[in-house]
């Protein structure tokens, strides 16, 4: 039994740390440290830098330009990104649609889409949720009607992060309204510039507009944009859910939150033993979760498939993120510093998105405890 990273992994960590320290643009680092929102160009610049280093496609098979990293290296990479105050790239292109195109798409699609996903020339967003379909995604109603060489798509997708920046949207749409729920769904790629696609920002309680509604009205999409087989889109969706679990717990991000919190307390000369105690409790739980993540990683490294244990990481990780945002607000009180309250408001989303914590508990109950 041995907790240490191998010398190769440690060397890799040093390499990544070094690269970030020397190549991350200072203005981007400052924004992340201050908790400010990034602009599209910030993401594009950083992605270009990582692309040129060959470090952008961490989850892709090597033959398609992937880095060939195992679970431990991926973990190290994302930890160093957080510790170096670098942005996490938006996952929709790189870590969501690309793996699906690689696994279920055809050569023409791989040739057309993968290069611009990798170099960041094209941005993507995820067209899954609808006003009437959140946790019950399979009940989605967006309709894709086959008409000759095209699909005619009608419907509304919502809660879409970065749709305002996206060149493409991958859409789960119903191609067979008579089939049983999951069995009539297809995975279709839609160009955001297609007539009939309208993006409306949704303002959230933190004052930001990171999410949007996308209306699809008689949008004509060539049949070539279907990924995989018609009516087998749910398989793609499930594959996506099981595929990229790295960083689910957001541990490194939480450590950064903690560091920021301690700096804040020192800077404001806050002397509050009870607050210190509450912070220590969360810190301890964070370390317990971090160790749990390492145990999962070690198992994955030894060949075990990622499974429902990631639900533990999601539930506890988001609870800790929220607790830290709460403690920061408690430390300074209301009306004190401009971004602490909005950050707390914004973080209420973490227990809701990526599979609500209640759904995650259902998963643990059914798939682990077999209830």
């Amino acid at each position, binding site marked *: *039994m041995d907790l240490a990273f191998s010398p190769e992994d440690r060397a890799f960590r040093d390499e990544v740390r070094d690269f970030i320290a020397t190549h991350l643009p200072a203005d981007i680092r400052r924004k992340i440290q201050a908790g400010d929102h990034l602009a599209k160009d910030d993401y594009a610049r950083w992605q270009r830098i990582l692309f040129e280093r060959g470090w952008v496609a961490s989850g892709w098979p090597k033959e398609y330009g992937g880095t060939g990293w195992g679970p*431990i290296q991926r973990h190290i990479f994302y930890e160093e990104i957080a510790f170096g105050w670098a942005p996490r790239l938006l996952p929709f292109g790189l870590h969501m649609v690309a793996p699906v195109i690689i696994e279920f798409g055809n050569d023409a699609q791989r040739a057309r889409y993968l290069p611009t996903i990798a170099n960041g020339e094209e941005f993507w967003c995820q067209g899954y949720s609808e006003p009437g379909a959140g946790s019950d995604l399979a009940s989605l109603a967006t309709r894709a009607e086959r008409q000759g060489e095209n699909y005619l798509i009608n419907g509304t997708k919502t809660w879409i992060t970065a749709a305002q920046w996206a060149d493409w949207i991958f859409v789960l749409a119903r191609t067979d309204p008579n089939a049983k729920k999951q069995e009539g769904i297809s995975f279709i790629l839609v160009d955001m510039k297609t007539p009939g696609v309208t993006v409306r920002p949704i303002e959230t309680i933190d004052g930001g507009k990171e999410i949007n509604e996308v209306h699809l009205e008689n949008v004509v999409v060539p049949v070539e944009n279907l990924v995989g087989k018609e009516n087998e889109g749910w398989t793609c969706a499930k594959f996506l859910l099981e595929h990229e679990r790295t960083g689910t717990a957001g541990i490194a991000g939480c450590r950064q939150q903690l560091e920021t919190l301690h700096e804040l307390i020192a800077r404001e000369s806050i002397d509050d033993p009870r607050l210190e105690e509450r912070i220590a409790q969360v810190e301890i739980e964070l370390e317990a979760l971090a160790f749990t993540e390492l145990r999962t990683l070690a198992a994955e490294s030894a060949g075990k498939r990622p499974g429902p244990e990631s639900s533990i990481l999601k539930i506890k990780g988001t609870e800790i993120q929220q607790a830290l945002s709460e403690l920061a607000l408690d430390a300074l009180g209301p009306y004190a510093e401009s971004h602490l309250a909005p950050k707390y408001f914004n973080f209420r989303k973490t227990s809701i998105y990526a599979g609500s914590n209640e759904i995650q508990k*259902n998963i643990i109950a059914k798939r682990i405890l077999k209830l």
Partner: protein
Amino acid sequence: MDFTLSPEQLLIKDSVARFAAGDHAGTEKWPQFAELGWLAIGAPDDLGGFGGPIETLLLMEQFGRGLVTSPYVAQVVLAGQILRAADRTELLERLVEGTERFAVAYEEPQARYDPAAVKTSAVRDGDAYVLRGTKVRVLDASTANTLIVSARTGDEISLFAVPADAPSATRENYASEDGYDVANVRLDGVRVDAAQLIGPVGGGLALLERALDHATAALCAEGLGLMSLMLEATVEYTKQRRQFGVPIGSFQALQHRMAEMFIEVELARSVAYMAAMTLEEQAGDPVARRRGVSAAKVQMAKSGRFVGQNAIQLHGGIGMSEEYKVGHYFKRMTMVERLLGDAQYHVARYIASRGAAVTAAPDRDPVGASGSRAS
């Protein structure tokens, strides 16, 4: 990075699991433990010892799962680690053989848990010391031949081996809620030779603290075992128990509660291993040791309380019956949570050992992850 157990470790785990699953209630276990070699865990090789904190964890987890009531933590881990660090090989040898048994008397009425809060005095008188004071909550004293007692020699603390039947050492046993042997001991001028010193004069606190950390880690492992059994029993029960025509385990409110219990058990598992690995890999760093072990106890206390309380809740009425096992696990968990320092004590200890700088990028390997980036 590897969390798999070696064949030797698996052997220990399996043999203890077998013992724990058997009928061990009320039996005189010590000769059995001696024969099975379990008294030698954590002792040096040249005394026939083997293993360390991980092996202790494996044993204690199984003891927890089987609700094995024994003086193991107090007499093997706590006492044994003091003797080991003090190089008292002849005493340690007798402990390992099972021919002499040791209990540790350190706590005093004026301060819960704190080994530095000592008023018991050891006054020099020629070649001897005279001990005067009161020790409380001494674990497993009645089966011990020798008490290891902490007392003040001047400004420092020293440890002394005191025969349990020494005249002027009065022991008052009392019943505990979890079936354990606990006593208060009054020392009214007990005379001990300088030869009965354990460790150097004035060097007792460091020895005691280190051993307490080992014993605390062992308790974390026992807690893990208790919790995992309580969860399993609860899941099993809710699958069987039917009300309103269905197993109650199909109700979402209960499913979610059990999912939450599962998460707590996993966190407890992590910290039990974290504590053991801290003891193994950072033996030379008392601050890191303190931080790792105290963090583990804090988490274990929180997780254990949640799992224990909810195990009873989800069992409904029968969870409250003395006849059914879950209540007994819950009672032991309640004691373990507070033994050798409750959450409050250990949070303060964690904060003190963490220092001003805080958790950020691990510059060292994961066990040292709570170190400061600035260092």
